[in-house]
């Protein structure tokens, strides 16, 4: 399964994602420069964390205008697997591939720590390796991770919520939402970093199951 990891100027988790795909999953991986338009035959696209274009405006607000994003939009429309992590999630929101928007954390501070999450759905291409209701631990590292959406839409997207913060809600996200898919279920955005919890050396392999779920979904497709 060939992965493409998008690199915007200011991305800083791109190589971490490449490392997991290449050295942990042992799958082919290419980086996709933001000004490219070809996805080079990738079976899945990863939008990594970081501060694309510095995020001096609204997070992800400039990145979603990049040429590569136009190709990713059509890829997603055709059912291709797209996962946006942290800044990648913010970019997916800005590009309209996912519903909702992002605000600054309620504490108005950057938070970097491992947090517990509840896996709300296991019938998605990103979570088929988990048990329903399983509580996992993944690191978060963000300043703007407070997911929000209007009340009516919140009701509509309940079935798309894949991860919720368990116990303490670290950033004040509405309904403790930590990760959400599109209606079709082939695009996932999540604030926690699965690539930081994919190896024993880093203390947790819960994140690896997300990538392995993608492998499984691809194999069964």
């Amino acid at each position, binding site marked *: 399964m060939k992965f493409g990891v998008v690199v915007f100027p200011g991305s800083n988790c791109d*190589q*971490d994602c490449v490392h997991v795909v290449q050295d942990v999953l042992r799958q082919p991986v290419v980086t996709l420069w933001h000004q490219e338009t070809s996805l080079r035959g990738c079976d899945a696209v990863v939008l990594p964390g970081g501060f694309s274009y510095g*995020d001096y405006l609204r997070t992800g607000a400039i990145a979603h205008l990049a040429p590569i994003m136009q190709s990713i939009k059509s890829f997603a429309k055709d059912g291709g697997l797209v996962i946006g992590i942290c800044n990648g999630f913010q970019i997916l929101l800005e590009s309209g591939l996912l519903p909702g928007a992002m605000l600054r954390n309620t504490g108005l*501070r950057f938070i*970097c720590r491992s947090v517990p999450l509840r896996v709300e759905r296991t019938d998605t291409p990103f979570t088929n390796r988990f048990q329903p209701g399983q509580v996992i631990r993944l690191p978060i*590292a963000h300043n703007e991770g407070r997911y929000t959406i209007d009340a009516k839409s919140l009701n509509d997207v309940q079935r798309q919520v894949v991860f919720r913060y368990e116990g303490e809600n670290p950033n004040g996200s509405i309904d403790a939402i930590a990760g959400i898919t599109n209606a079709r279920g082939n695009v996932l955005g999540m604030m926690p970093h699965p690539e*930081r919890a994919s190896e024993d050396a*880093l203390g947790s392999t819960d994140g690896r199951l997300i990538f392995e779920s993608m492998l499984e979904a691809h194999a069964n497709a």
Partner: protein
Amino acid sequence: MPELVLRRARRPAGDAEPGTPRRVRKGDGGPTKSEVRNPPPPRRGVAQRQDPLANGHGTTPLSVLKRVAKSHNLTDENYRHIVKTLGRQPTLTEVGIFGVMYSEHCSYCSSKLYLKTFPTAGARILVPAGKENAGVVDVGGGLAVAFKCESHNHPSAVEPVQGAATGVGGIIRDIFTMGARPVALFDSLRFGPLDGDARTAFLFEGVVKGISDYGNSVGVPTVGGEILFDPSYRGNPLVNVMCIGLLKKSELARGAARGIGNPVIYVGSSTGRDGLGGASFASRDLKDGDADRPAVQIGDPFTEKCLIEATLEALATGDVMGIQDMGAAGLTCSTCEMPSRGGTGIEIDVALVPRREEGMTPYEVMLSESQERMLLVARKGREQRVKDIFAKWGLSAVTIGRVTKGGRMRVMDGPTLVADIPVGALTTEAPVYRRPVRRPRYLATVQAERLKHLPQPRDLGEVLLKLLSAPTIASKAPVFEQYDHMVQTNTVVLPGRADAAVLRLKGTGSYLAATTDGNGRYCYLDPYEGGKAAVAEAARNLVCVGAEPLAITDCLNFGSPLDPEIMWQFKECVRGLSDACRAFATPVTGGNVSLYNQGAKGAIDPTPVVGMIGVITSGEPVTASFKREGDAVVLLGETREELGGSEYLLTIHGRKTGRPPRVDLEHERALHRVMLDAARQGWLASAHDCSDGGLAVTIAESCIMGDAEALGAAIEPSAAPVDAKAIEPSALLFGESVGRIVVSCERRYVEPLLALAAKHNVPAAAIGAVGGTRLRIGTWIDCPVEDLSDAWRHGLPRALGAV
């Protein structure tokens, strides 16, 4: 505030905006804004002459030149030296160039004599101290580490967010210009007490925000450091940042301008008036007020991140001959240091420098400290390839000059020559002073205090809780959780879990460990012992995680070198650092010196901060928390009646007196051998060295600092090795005798561990066992670990009034 007015007037071009009402007293000795911004046009036609500057300053009046010189703290003697070197009067631009290069910050004029005494050689040293932007050490497996520590104290004192942020940015550039990818940041911070002083809270929160904003965005994890609070840093905080970079040995880059005719390329952000004269600002006393804010630079981490990627990509082509950051003294510093290293000369045209403000004079362009800029020398004919890489990352890269023969730095402004100086005069031949030294008078008084006579607190459990909640000792999680400490996925030991940070070296099976340490209080009470203690503590922290210490970088933070007592502190600290580095075979690879850390309330405690790196080549890293019920607790090292300089003495008795703990370097070395051997054997479940707060705090921390449930312990300290029969309970529990480590291990390893210690003449004893939910120490302390944990975890937020 007449002082503020005077200072504002004396800073050349320091005013914020054109049109700002000037509050200049007539005849105060400073150049006017218009003199600096709009110097009289040089005479036409002189460029054709043999020495177009033979008649010197053109129409800039001598009185103006002297005033500008004075504003840079150039002495009359310096000025005469400049005239002699040039054989004529300098131009305005030249005065600025000499001014910043002769500043303490750039020239190390007061400290150089002593820095030369550091041990710098070693089998693993690939680039020794002082030769390049950072020292480089061989860590095995074809890999090398470039690392360096730098201070940003003065800027952080006036504008904490940007001061700290640009401190981070500057040191990162020093690392990747060596061809190394920055992989870790450490912040060693000192502030005044958080006793309700709003200014201190403002500085503290601002510095943390600056580090967080910049470091997180640039994608380099902040994995360690220290934060200490002491009255001597009130108003003069210390912000020392260490960056560690990793490179293949074959990828080492240099900061020299080589190859006559090679193009000199300016890359990165455009040049503005920010940070004008920052190096000179950092080379004098801090004064109250915000008048120095224009001397602080503004950071842009996004540009920095792009610079890292573009630079490493450009270096990989082999078309970059040399590269240097424009840090302190900006374009001036890189323009003279690069040819100085290369044995060449340089000619640049400031008219070609990309600018973000209009009407900048050559003086301003040469002295600007705008951030995220670098100078590089490309291979002739290949410059377009280099420029294309920077363009890909959205960065400007402009040829502004070329490498020349003859060892001169020539600066043009279009057709007009504005500076022509031998590079040696600015670098290797810059003035070096032997400042007067005198043993400080306060020493006899503070060292003589009889601590035996202090009242013993009735409830030592209360004392322990109070120490655990003291901001210097309390958990720093509220701070490091604001830093991205995991990006790059190498952080195998998270901050706050062990005595040193540990990064995996992907694909090698080895680990890199690093720490920063320094105790200003010890140095205040005995600069020599304090210097030794800083190195010893750093090395001890490394062996606690099982890493072999390799080399150090240091930041030497002191008051004014014009004060003989402070120069004595400096001299003695350097002697202590040197002796310890020699004993441990951990050479000094570089660092920086920050002087003039003093304001109206006096000088800071002398504070050398040591950044040390080490490697773990076999075995797994050891962390500091107890792991299992039933494990034995073993104390290595001897406890003495040493309360001098302790956190206990300051927090409980409000005193900063006595003699600091004595460092026995021979013992420390033996301790290293015991620890490294035991770690390799896999005997150690935990290891934590005794430092601030002594034995009781160390054991309490091992109970509570893990990520799992806290574990209690029952300790019989009378079993601990002591040097005298009678030792006061307070000294036994809270004294900070150095050279001690508390380890825990399975019971079956106790005997071999004690035998190993005995073999190396390290005093050691089993002093208790892990287990239960209470910490019991002798008959003095019996406390639920929950209470210890609460005091420790919430100490910092409570002191900030946040809880």
